[in-house]
């Protein structure tokens, strides 16, 4: 433990100077993921502090979704090591799974069931006791203002309501980390604003860490305490918005992002989302 801790400190000298090892909730060390000849994630290392809001940015196909899938145990890294909440994602997947909640890019609710039933199934799958989940479901559904609509079928919910329900569900089992993969795609500015307000409150009240990806850079600028930019499978910059702006000599995060990743439009090939997910799954 001490030896491993030491090597991580050497790798991440800058952050290790600032925080104690125990402050890191996610540690990725030299992580690589290959699909055949294609390297989706190339020797990536980063650490995320407990309780911070962290944005993971990159153009389509940069490796964001692959990274999230590895962090959430859906894919195994080809090389390297990832720990989340102190557990190795490959060797202790179920402990890792209990430690995070996730809001996927695409909806993942059962639309034929009611909102409450979706919450109930989640609670049982995460091994929660009835005495605990009954109260917790109510608290969270009240927080996202859906408690009075708990017995409606999810298929009758609007896009914004579904997202709010997914946030409530993702938090149900008291995760240490909440992953949000492009959580605000397709939501109107009002819902987006509301959603972030919930999240900011939750980070404070539940002491969770938020890891999110987005293409709305003003969102990252506004809410993320630290961010990393990934391109072609490598992390090309990380730090605060100010750090990135200083590094590139630009005045906005958007300009800094374009300076880092170039202006060429990326092919959708290998971009996250369903297509990729389906192909990965389809492979068996």
């Amino acid at each position, binding site marked *: 433990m001490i030896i491993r801790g030491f090597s991580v400190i050497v790798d991440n000298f800058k952050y290790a100077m600032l925080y104690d090892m125990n402050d890191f909730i996610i540690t990725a060390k030299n992580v690589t993921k290959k699909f055949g000849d294609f390297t989706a994630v190339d020797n990536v290392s980063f650490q995320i502090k407990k309780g911070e809001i962290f944005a993971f940015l990159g153009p389509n196909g940069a490796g964001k979704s692959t990274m999230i*899938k590895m962090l*959430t*145990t*859906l*894919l195994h890294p080809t090389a390297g090591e990832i720990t989340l909440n102190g557990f190795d994602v490959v060797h202790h*997947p*179920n*402990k890792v*799974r*209990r430690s*995070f909640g*996730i809001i*996927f890019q*695409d*909806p*993942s*609710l*059962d*639309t*034929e*069931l009611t909102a409450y*039933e979706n919450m*109930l*199934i*989640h609670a*049982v*799958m*995460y*091994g929660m006791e009835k005495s605990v989940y009954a109260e917790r479901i109510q608290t969270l559904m009240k927080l996202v203002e859906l408690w009075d609509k708990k017995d409606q*079928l999810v298929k009758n919910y609007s896009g914004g309501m579904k997202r709010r329900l997914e946030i409530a569900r993702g938090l149900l089992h008291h995760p240490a980390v909440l992953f949000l993969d492009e959580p605000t795609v397709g939501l109107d500015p009002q819902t987006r604003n509301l959603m972030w307000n919930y999240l900011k409150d939750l980070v404070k009240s539940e002491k969770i860490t938020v890891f999110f990806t987005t293409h709305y850079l003003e969102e990252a600028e506004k809410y993320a305490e630290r961010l990393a930019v990934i391109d072609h499978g490598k992390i090309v910059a990380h730090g605060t918005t100010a750090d990135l702006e200083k590094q590139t000599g630009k005045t906005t995060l958007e300009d800094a992002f374009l300076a880092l990743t170039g202006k060429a439009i990326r092919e959708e090939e290998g971009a996250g989302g*369903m297509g990729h*997910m*389906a*192909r*990965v*799954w*389809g*492979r*068996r």
Partner: protein
Amino acid sequence: MKIIYILWFRQIKRYLRSRSRLIGSLGQPILFLVALGYGFGAIYAKAGGGNYIDFLAPGVICMGILFTAIFAGIEVIWDKQFGFLKETLVAPVSRLQIMVGRTLGGATVATMQGVIVLAITFFVGFRPTDWWMILPAVLFMIVIALFFTALGTAIASRLDDMQGFQVIMNFLVMPIFFLSGALFPLTGLPPVIEFLVKIDPLSYGVDAIRGALVGGSQFGFGLDITVLLVITAIMLVLGAWLFSGIEA
């Protein structure tokens, strides 16, 4: 155990809630009973076969189970497309538990369907020789339902969208139904057809249920039960294995 239960519960809820599916899936067996039962009844009796409704009813019960069970298994594709599968794959549960839960759920639904069709057959004049024999018949229904739900799950584990669904219906499900002896007696068939009938898993299910309800099992109970149990066990293992492979 709780996890298997909750996923079972989900399947039941979905089934009971989709009334259109429930009614729709009963329409076909009723049509077969009425159209074929009354349509061929006279000819069948004239040919010395006896009461055609008595012969047909167990076959139509099996049809109800077959379609519902395959469909319940295929629903995995929906879960892939509508995202719910991801929710289960990141949960701290094993793939095996997920597969077992949903297969039991699907099989329960399919068995219920079979029992409902059985009740409907009473309205077109079907009577079992011995009412007590309904109990073993229901046990056979459960086994058939398990087999075909697992088969549907196994197929769906390898498919990404519903485009293959028609192919499965036309080249797998329909032949399984028509070649099972559900509609016609298995005597005096050309050798090729006889061979196909013998490798059709549903043949043994139809034969067992017919044997239980009206007598006249062609393969004998011993063979029926052995075949059904063995292939169901194999299919459950295969389905679980393929389902576990979904995670990428």
